[in-house]
């Protein structure tokens, strides 16, 4: 069964905070839930599906359902790190298509800054992770694991630091128009290259920001979408995959988007050339470059050329990306960027992005999430949507 056209994005909300010292974590979830329901013009009483991931405090959503005072008949707490929320939108569409719910609420919130950089979530017993004995001794963290992907990509394909820098430059061009963005200054390729190397070959400005905040999405059935007063954004296709070390046959040159992308494009009945705007998970510049290759926007190995010379800048290049400034410049709430990828894609389809970055005639858009680590194991999720 295809879910194409069987669910719509009813409401979206991105929390404006970037430093939530004065708010609790459940409070942030409630504020984004209220924001997205208000945007849709729906009440929390109409929510009959709830989706959350490891950032939600409590037991897989049970605590949040209680706290929010909602009574969902469909609950899903799929956890794939930062890509969870892209998968949640897909699973919500599936549940709606199957008649299990009609108004599905997805929430994300986090306050890593307020908590002094501490990561929270489901990793309560890292000593029980299956890979712990063979990875924990070696000091692998998100930064140096992604850096190894960049190192190998450079080795195999001749990708350069200058090309990676263009991704940050493009994000910064967009962030200058976002008053909530953490980094609002336009940067140059040279400024990225001049920032300190934090894990070879990645510079500090190849990395995303660390921020508090959150976001929510409301996914609704076609019948409910017709009653809402917002522009209608239809879900065309979705795909997901989890790539890992494959028992030791490690290949750091590609991502799970190689699998999730074609599944989503096939279901949507569109091609990469049909995508007018793309939200691409940007934990690091290399994440964007590899994902664009794997989604088929260019050949494998040609990502460096594709992203250079402003090709990702709205109004300048062929593929406008992350027009809110993305994780690289705007925010990365709770160290999880999938939610904001969906939200900005919906803004673009509604024509509600900032006028300086709004893509003209934006009828088909893509949002892609990457959670976990490209260097070990990660969850990829692709979502394609259409303005109706």
């Amino acid at each position, binding site marked *: 069964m295809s879910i194409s056209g069987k669910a719509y994005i009813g409401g979206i909300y991105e929390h404006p905070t970037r430093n939530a010292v004065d708010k609790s974590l459940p409070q942030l979830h409630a504020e984004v839930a209220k924001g997205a329901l208000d945007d849709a013009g729906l009440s929390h009483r109409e929510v009959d599906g709830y989706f959350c991931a490891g950032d939600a405090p409590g037991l897989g959503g049970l605590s949040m359902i209680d706290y929010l005072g909602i009574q969902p008949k469909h609950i899903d707490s799929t956890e794939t790190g930062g890509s969870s929320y892209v998968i949640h939108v897909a699973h919500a569409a599936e549940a709606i298509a199957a008649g299990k719910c009609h108004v599905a609420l997805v929430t994300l919130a986090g306050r890593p800054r307020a908590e002094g950089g501490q990561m929270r979530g489901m990793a309560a017993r890292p000593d029980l992770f299956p890979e712990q*004995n063979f990875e924990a001794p*070696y000091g692998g963290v998100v930064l140096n694991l992604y850096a190894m992907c960049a190192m190998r990509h450079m080795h195999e394909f001749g990708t350069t630091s200058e090309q990676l820098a263009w991704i940050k430059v493009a994000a910064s061009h967009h962030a200058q128009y976002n008053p909530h963005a953490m980094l609002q200054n336009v940067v140059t390729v040279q400024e990225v290259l001049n920032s300190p190397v934090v894990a070879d070959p990645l510079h500090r400005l190849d990395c995303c920001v660390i921020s508090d905040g959150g976001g929510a999405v409301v996914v609704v059935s076609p019948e409910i979408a017709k009653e809402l007063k917002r522009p209608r954004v239809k879900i065309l296709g979705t795909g997901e995959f989890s790539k890992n070390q494959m028992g030791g046959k490690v290949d*750091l040159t590609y991502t799970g988007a190689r699998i999730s992308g074609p599944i989503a494009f096939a279901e949507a009945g569109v091609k990469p050339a049909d995508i007018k705007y793309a939200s691409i998970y940007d934990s690091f510049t290399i994440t964007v470059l590899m994902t664009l290759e794997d989604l088929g926007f260019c050949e494998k190995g040609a990502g460096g050329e594709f992203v250079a010379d402003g090709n990702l800048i709205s109004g300048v290049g062929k593929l406008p990306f992350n027009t809110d400034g993305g994780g690289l410049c705007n925010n990365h709430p709770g160290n999880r960027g999938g939610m904001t990828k969906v939200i900005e894609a919906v803004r673009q389809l509604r024509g509600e992005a900032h006028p300086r970055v709004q893509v003209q005639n934006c009828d088909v858009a893509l949002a892609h999430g990457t959670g976990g680590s490209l260097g070990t194991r990660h969850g990829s999720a692709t979502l394609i949507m259409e303005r109706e």
Partner: protein
Amino acid sequence: MAERKITAPAINPETKPFWDAAAKGQLLIKKCLACGELHYYPRTICPFCHSDRTEWQTASGKGSIYSFSIMRRAAEPFAIAYVTLEEGPKVLTNIVDCAFEDIKIGKPVKLVWKQSEGGPAVPMFTLA
């Protein structure tokens, strides 16, 4: 330069043979008797064919660098790497006892052991 503190493995019944061999300086990988594939990190059930007929095999300790990164932001910078073992599987590890600028993709490496904090010595590699 101060040495980075190495997190100890939390040894469990499935991994104990690996660490018993490690105490004798042997790096073990797993071989599947059903499909013939070698795998790492080691499991009881083969991740390729799901046979439970897997046995430990001692690796030569020779390999080459598949990729690496110098973690410069750490208090004590260190080199993380994937090493392609002579036998085939790639292992996540550290490259130690050499200058960072000498570490390159493709360079041959050999096994060394480094003491973890409150645990056993763990397998790492140095330039051969």
